[in-house]
């Protein structure tokens, strides 16, 4: 064959690099994300909520939560921008303080469920066999029970066992991650099953690499985009679930304010009709935060995980 007559291998020096090197995939993704206006709007809203809740109260004179009978149920005014509640507390200060709790619970339970879900998903997908069966059946079990009723049962148990209200916040985080991890574990496992069949994973076997190196250097980096996307949606879901729980008096309890229990406190005909400043601010906060997180998550998914459409 004519093709066999080769010159020295040095000829390859002429082979050009296809695209500009160093333009890493992460940087490309970031650039595309920055161009997505809707996603950036979502991000701006989320960032604003975080800044407002964690920094805002530092500038408010009303963060001591002191009861002040002189200003009960006052409408919004220059002194109290969002009015006061039935105990004369400043609603704006309370909404921001509640936001701290709600956002923290959302973030913390996300971190926990991402950790557990990724770990179990990776183990199940990598080792398969019995481990996989055990993990996935447990996940299926948790997934078949709708998460809200499950959370209600947990919440009711907490009340039954008279768990001190100070601890409830942490236990709510735990509860939310218990319902949060199975979906994530399942997606991570699916991704693992597909990744382990890739040729470059066969190549790692041929290279005699250790499992640890295969997992942490080769598989996890490929999972990161998926995990980031799911984690983002997960925060939104956790905030919403926490609000619902607290609204029903099964989550974080007064006096610790959360957006959910603030609406609950205004859950009567008089407040609903005559004191809308009691429930509109926390309600709007939940709505805006969760919608913004989901819009941002959508944008992230388009950028990081374009093949995966819900």
């Amino acid at each position, binding site marked *: 064959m004519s093709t066999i007559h*080769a010159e020295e*291998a040095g000829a*390859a020096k002429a082979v050009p690099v296809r*695209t500009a090197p160093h333009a890493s995939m992460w940087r490309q993704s970031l650039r595309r994300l920055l161009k997505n206006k809707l996603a950036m709007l979502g991000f701006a809203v989320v960032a604003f909520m975080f800044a407002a809740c964690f920094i805002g109260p530092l500038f408010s004179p009303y963060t001591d939560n002191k009861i002040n009978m002189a200003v009960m149920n006052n409408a919004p005014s220059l002194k109290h921008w969002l009015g006061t509640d039935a105990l004369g507390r400043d609603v704006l200060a309370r909404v921001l303080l509640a936001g701290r709790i709600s956002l923290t619970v959302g973030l913390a339970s996300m971190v926990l469920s991402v950790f557990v879900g990724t770990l179990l998903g990776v183990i199940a997908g990598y080792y398969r066999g019995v481990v996989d069966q055990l993990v996935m059946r447990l996940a299926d079990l948790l997934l078949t029970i709708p998460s809200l009723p499950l959370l209600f049962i947990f919440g009711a148990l907490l009340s039954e066992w008279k768990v001190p209200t100070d601890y409830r916040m942490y236990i709510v985080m735990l509860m939310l991650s218990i319902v949060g991890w199975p979906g994530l574990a399942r997606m991570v496992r699916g991704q693992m099953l597909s990744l382990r069949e890739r040729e470059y994973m066969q190549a790692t076997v041929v290279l005699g690499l250790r499992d640890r190196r295969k997992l942490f250097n080769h598989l996890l980096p490929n999972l990161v985009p998926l995990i980031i996307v799911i984690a983002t949606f997960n925060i939104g879901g956790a905030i919403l679930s926490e609000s619902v729980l607290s609204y029903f008096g099964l989550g974080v309890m007064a006096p610790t304010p959360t957006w959910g229990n603030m609406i609950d406190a205004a859950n009567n005909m008089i407040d609903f009709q005559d004191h809308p400043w009691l429930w509109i601010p926390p309600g709007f906060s939940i709505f805006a935060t969760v919608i913004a997180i989901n819009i941002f998550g959508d944008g992230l998914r388009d950028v990081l995980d374009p093949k995966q459409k819900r």
Partner: protein
Amino acid sequence: MSNVLEIEHLSTHFHTEEGVVRAVDDVGLQVRQGEIVCIVGESGSGKSITAMSVMGLVEGPAGRVAGGRIAFDGIDLLKLGRNELRTIRGNEIAMIFQEPMTSLNPVLKIGEQLMEPLIEHRKMSKKAARKRAIELIGEVGISRAEQIADSYPHELSGGMLQRIMIAIAISCEPKLLIADEPTTALDVTIQAQILDMLRRFKEESGMSILLITHDLGVVAEMADYVVVMYAGKVVEEGEVVALFENPQHPYTKGLLKSKPIINQRQDELYSIPGQVPNPLELTPSCYFHDRCAYCMDICRTQQPVLKDAGNGQKVACWLNEEVTPV
């Protein structure tokens, strides 16, 4: 010269829903030190599965090495545990695949992937491994090695990636390199450069190469010894010159006839009529019989065994049996 690799009676089966596929059926071959052995045969003849059996890449539940012995340096690889195998793979036996584009992890930099076997097998520090990785990139004929080390696979061309794969494969100075159709996915000009480089490294280091190809041009250029496979069996083997000058098996003859000859235009390229048999429908027979111009009755009912055919060749064909058995 000693045998680096000795495969004896290797059988690798896949248990599928339709039945058992005998992808590799009682195959034997030897690779001596410093020698290039080529396995040739049409697509589906079991070449890759033979290589994968050596590397321990045939995985359950469907696939299984059903029997035989694969001795590397006298050690039976089939009897080794996971950890013992791991210290041999990538270190003493290396392998490169057909598709360089998909054989590298897309999210890791070239340099990082080159450093891994060095860190794993040579116990190098990260710094030393990076230095060596950059040297290796230069050794496979790529300039601007530092810059390449910091780029991602999608930023390089197929030819460059295959050079990188070779660099990774030779990084721990293996005794045996298995190359499964290393040039099939590449442009013809690049093919020649890659083969040339493989041969140069072989000569410099004295390693052996088991080269898998369906391209007789590659065989002619590279091989010392040739093993012809058909439907999971070895049908003929021999020194490359003897085999090309005096092919014995009708399948080998057909393969050689279908190879275009330089400076000699043919009206139409010859190709062996018919197709590779369905591996699920094999009966005791010469598996080539329905495509063979010299097919006899016995070819349909009994399987010929591989026998010495003189001239250092071995062939499995009833035409070569002195006395035709009843």
